[in-house]
């Protein structure tokens, strides 16, 4: 290997390594800060129950955005998180998001109703839910993973989008949905296993 080639290789390697080390530091910091989250969200963010959302394996970009919105009182209907998120800086919240995003997603085991799933599935495809959230609801970029999420949590969050408690252009189409329809959507998405 020529000296020039070696230097180029080293330079490329340095560029590749530095962000990688920074990323693992961020995750370690997120783990340190995020251990207390498990009190409500379960170890590694694999949340049992139904009304508290799973966070282990959720998209980093989505979690990072939402945690900062909690802290800035932009999602006041999430009362607990509005208090808790204020205990951290935006950089700390980003590291917590990176940590939980690095973990394995475990699908919900909430009981779901097969008739509601069918109705929910039809609505989801008619309304383009899968275009943003992915074919299996796996989430893309800032659009959260909702496939395999806890059912009660999905239902409550959709009610907040519907009422405008959470402002979102994409989710504004929920404004015409009935409680039953939201329940059907929740059954469908939670039931993706």
């Amino acid at each position, binding site marked *: 290997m020529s000296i020039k080639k070696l230097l180029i290789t080293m330079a490329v390697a340095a560029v590749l390594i530095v962000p990688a080390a920074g990323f693992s530091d961020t995750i370690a910091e997120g783990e*340190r*800060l995020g*251990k*207390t*989250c*498990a*009190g*409500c*969200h*379960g*170890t590694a963010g694999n*949340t*049992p*129950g*139904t*009304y*508290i959302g799973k966070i282990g394996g959720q998209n980093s970009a989505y979690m990072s955005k939402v945690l900062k919105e909690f802290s800035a009182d932009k999602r006041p209907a999430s*009362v*607990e998180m509005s*208090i*808790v998120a*204020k*205990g*951290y800086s935006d950089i700390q919240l980003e590291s917590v998001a990176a940590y939980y995003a690095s973990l394995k997603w475990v699908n919900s085991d909430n009981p779901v109703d097969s008739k509601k799933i069918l109705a929910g599935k039809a609505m989801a495809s008619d309304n383009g839910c899968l275009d943003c959230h992915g074919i299996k609801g796996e989430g893309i970029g800032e659009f959260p993973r909702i496939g395999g999420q806890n059912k*009660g949590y999905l239902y*409550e969050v959709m009610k907040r989008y519907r009422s405008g408690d959470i402002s979102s252009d994409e989710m504004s189409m929920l404004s015409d949905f009935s409680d039953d329809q939201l329940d059907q959507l929740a059954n469908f998405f939670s039931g993706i296993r």
Partner: protein
Amino acid sequence: MSISRRNFIKYTSAAAIGAGVLGCHHEINVSSSTGIIMPKSSKRIVILGGGWGGATAAKYLKLEDPSLDVVLVERQDSFISCPVSNWVIGGFRKMSDITVSYEGLIKNYGIKVLHAEAKELDAENGQLKTDKGIVEFDLLLASPGISYKYDTVEGLNTPDAIDRFPAAFKAGAETVKLAERLAAMKPGGSVLLTVPPTPYRCPPGPYERISLIADYLKKNKPGSKLIVFDSNDGIVSKGPLFKKAWNDYYSDIIEYVPDNYLVSVDAGTGRVVSEKGEITPDVVNVIPAMKANQTAFDLGLMDKDDDEWVRAYPDTFMSYKYENVYVVGDSTHNGAVGGVPKSGYVANSMGKVAASAMARRLNGKEPLEPTYANTCYSLVNEQEGIFVSAVYRYDKNIKRIMSVSGGVSPERKALFAKHAQNWAESIWSDMLL
């Protein structure tokens, strides 16, 4: 004793104590060196107390370093949750709903669970003497919980009085007893609950119980009254939220008397005397003043002679008294650790901080900066809940835990009651599964 907190390396070469007679027989001579059970073959941490702090620490030690030998010493066969136990007293949960086996810790993490009672601590030689034999350790973490100060009320410190006036602030037989007394009471009866002076475990706990007993009486025992003698001059936690619920739902049931100390009880007649008067109710729940569990005193963990809580450094929870003994949970001294409530959630946080610090110490590493949080839900009836939340940090200047953010729910909601139930399932799984 002097604490050389930086001296991790020196510690790691803890003397291996010769293995004696093994096995777990019923009769073991605990005073002789042949009484060592489960002899230590690798770095071992013994956890004393399988409650909120201890069970959490045991699991998180194994998550941090699976090669550690973790032994959990616990008297009870199963974990019974004190948070949520008021729901059993309120008549809408069973004891089995708040009981979790230790099997998860054994099967999922390889933690050894020894059902035994701690008798004596030899910190210098790394030995905990129990009624089943001597257990060796490199580091010990004690999370012993609380004891009742029965002797602060005249006539209360007798078996008859303890039976007649159950405290039910340690979940288990006492909880069942109080629930059964309420169920057996005739309609139109009277119940007395006494709230202890601070500091006590679970600040909103007595007030949730008041709400849920009132809810139970309203539904099942028409015409009954609930009288409350509060040693404090007002509701200690979530005051306006509890007051509003009591005014809205239970104004004809609850008679709340603040700033009223309990003076004496009579187990024979059932008479209860307070500073502001005496009554003879049908059912009495005396929640006595509290101190650290008696085990903490018996093991010599108190730093000063008249201490009632165990002093520990809140960045690692190493005790003031012994460098190789850590203490977490309700038994910790608020003056030493800082302004955190004695709650299950805080004990869970403390358990994680201590587990990380202990595992790192045994591996020759500095502790990480600690983090702590709290959320306490309370129900005001079977359907509606309220809560308080806070995030804390360690202040390096004053060496205490300080609050960073915190607040209470602005109102009661059905959704918060659902969160309360799911919170319990989450945190039990975080401790035990």
